[in-house]
């Protein structure tokens, strides 16, 4: 029976606990606001002898991911953490980690990208990584950041997945806010995460292994990239199984789409991460007024759960998408593009509107969300176009 410790903790502290309990053989990381406490807490576990992990305090995020790739290719269980400019600096290495099919787990404290420089929460950094072949998870709370981080090891290291996983939490809002959290005992977590058996490690003690080979013309490159898509497409059942297995241990549910009162909803806001709570507050308020509002929160963003999402949204009269980053020059922000595509693919021509909100940590006020739900009613009535709004700007 799992032993549960209730504590007040930040998202960063809970991710650090998850990494300690998953006991990676190597953790190579570089500190960056607002991820810093993950690395600091882990460094303290190392200093106190609480983990066997080789902690590699690298000189940049590029080297962090480079060392993680070397360590994972060697056969180690590997974890790291970053944010914002650090994630951007890793960009080429993100593709290499997934292309080499290395099950690295990385926490990202979602933060704005320069310029202008800003250290606060939005999704600009992680959205730049959405097509890099990583599985992407979004946490709403510190508790979920812990849960997602543990689930990540099971997903990444599953023999039929073998892909890197990014477990993300919103900068400052989730990384730094103190919440009531439940920490399970080390033995229970170790049993859940399980042992890792690498497929083709460099350090295998028998035969020579080669990693990171050259595939020029002749089609091998193309075949390998096709296999990579097949792997991430096929990972969804493993993600669900890992999430449900953890739910059975910890008692908290797992859904790739966390749908709140969407079954009969006329107006649904789609959201990722920490803003979901405020959206539910406004939806509850609207329901008290007889307006059927719902909230669909995406917990697994890559692979994109388009079938599951379409199922949740199919009865709505209008759908608003909350985008905490922009895709400059495109019709919508990145989440909006994915949601629209999912609806179209299922033959659902529900009117949609995209809402860019909270960039650079700007407040996501209840009034702003009331505005969005109000616009959805106009949209359903044909009084508003399917364009894009900025919430909370002049």
């Amino acid at each position: 029976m799992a032993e549960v410790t209730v504590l007040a903790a930040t998202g960063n502290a809970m991710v650090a606990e998850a990494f300690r309990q998953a006991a990676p053989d190597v953790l190579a990381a570089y500190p960056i606001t607002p991820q810093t406490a993950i690395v600091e807490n882990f460094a303290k576990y190392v200093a106190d002898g609480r983990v066997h992990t080789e902690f590699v305090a690298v000189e940049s995020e590029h080297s962090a991911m480079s060392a993680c790739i070397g360590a994972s290719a060697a056969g180690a269980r590997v974890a790291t953490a970053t944010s914002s400019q650090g994630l951007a600096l890793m960009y080429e290495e993100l593709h290499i980690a997934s292309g080499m099919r290395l099950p690295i787990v990385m926490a990202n404290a979602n933060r704005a990208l320069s310029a202008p420089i800003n250290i606060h929460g939005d999704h600009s950094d992680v959205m730049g990584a959405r097509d890099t072949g990583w599985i992407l998870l979004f946490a709403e709370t510190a508790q979920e950041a812990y849960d997602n981080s543990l689930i990540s090891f099971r997903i990444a290291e599953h023999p039929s997945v073998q892909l890197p996983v990014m477990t993300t939490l919103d900068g400052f809002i989730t990384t730094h806010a103190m919440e009531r959290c439940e920490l399970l005992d080390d033995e229970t977590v170790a049993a859940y995460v399980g042992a890792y058996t690498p497929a083709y490690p460099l350090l295998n003690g028998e035969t020579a292994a080669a990693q990171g080979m050259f595939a020029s013309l002749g089609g091998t490159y193309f075949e390998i990239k096709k296999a990579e898509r097949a792997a991430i497409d096929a990972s969804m059942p493993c993600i669900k199984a890992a999430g449900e297995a953890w739910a059975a241990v910890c008692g908290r549910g797992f859904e790739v789409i966390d749908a709140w009162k969407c079954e009969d909803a006329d107006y649904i806001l789609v959201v990722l991460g920490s803003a979901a709570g405020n959206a539910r507050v406004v939806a509850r308020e609207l329901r008290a007024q007889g307006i059927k509002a719902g909230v669909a929160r995406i917990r697994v963003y890559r692979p994109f759960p388009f079938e599951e999402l379409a199922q949740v949204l199919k009865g709505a009269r209008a759908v608003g998408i909350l985008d905490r980053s922009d895709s400059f020059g495109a019709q919508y922000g990145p989440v909006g593009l994915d949601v629209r595509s999912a609806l179209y693919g299922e033959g659902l021509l529900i009117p949609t509107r995209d809402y860019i909100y909270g960039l650079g940590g700007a407040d996501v006020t209840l009034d702003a969300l009331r505005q969005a739900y109000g616009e959805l009613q106009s949209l359903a009535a044909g009084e508003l176009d399917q364009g894009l709004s900025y919430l909370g700007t002049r």
Partner: protein
Amino acid sequence: MANIKSLSETRERLVGGHRLCGGCGASVAVRQVLLGAGADTEVVVGSATGCLEVSTTALPYSSWNTSFIHNAFENAAATISGVEAAYRGLKAAGKIAADKEIKFVAFGGDGGTYDIGLQSLSGALERGHDFVYVCYDNNAYMNTGIQRSSATPHYSWATTAEVGAAQPGKPQRRKDLTSIVAAHHIPYVAQASVGNWKDLVEKSEKAFNTPGPAFLNVLAPCPRGWRYTGDQTIEVARLAFRTKFWPLYEVQDGVWSMREVREKDLLPIEEFLRVQGRFKHLFAPENEHLIALLQAEVDEYYDYVRERCG
């Protein structure tokens, strides 16, 4: 001590059938360095993107008799540091036997080491990983077509340091990478050359047998880029030594020592320049004064090393 008979009987770790050019200095450097790792030692090789990597790892073939990893251009040192950290982490976890010994070596060209990979190298050296980093210095970005690097000699031709009416080749001097690495105060640093096999293999033996980081900067002439025929590689490398262009020295636990050129072997810098097309323009009458400047520069660097050797 390296002797040619036993070395010739040692199993090769980089085998024939690779696609490097005839006369390539890099493959000679790699084979000689790996002979210094010990015949029965398990070695993991890392490589930066470059000639060596593209020519030895074309899928589905590998020319390596060892485990091998390539990641990208600027991060061979960071990558091998991750492999080495995994070795220690897996030992701590009991997944690799405590008495199991594995050596780690990373190769990069001068582009991947002097330039784009310098930060990654510096970080890995400072962290004290137990590995050998080998720069095969062929004085330019040869893999992409002879573009200048910070290792390209002063006044040399390169495709991004052209020779023309306004400029006689590369306007800047070479970077002194070996001294930069020595300034990290790691246990072992050496400059070696494929033209002096015994010196190179012995330095490699020291590098592999020194706990902690070790660095070898190996001159590896490139017939395509230096503009000479492929059968001249060893001779050109020897001329680099005899003309003071490439001093052979080592810094062991902070103590500098050099293999001085014997008085009777000493040659003027012209003898190194003359055999290479990349310096052809220096022999035009309007550029001859540049040869005197180059002579002064190599003399100055040679004296700088000699002074440190006490």
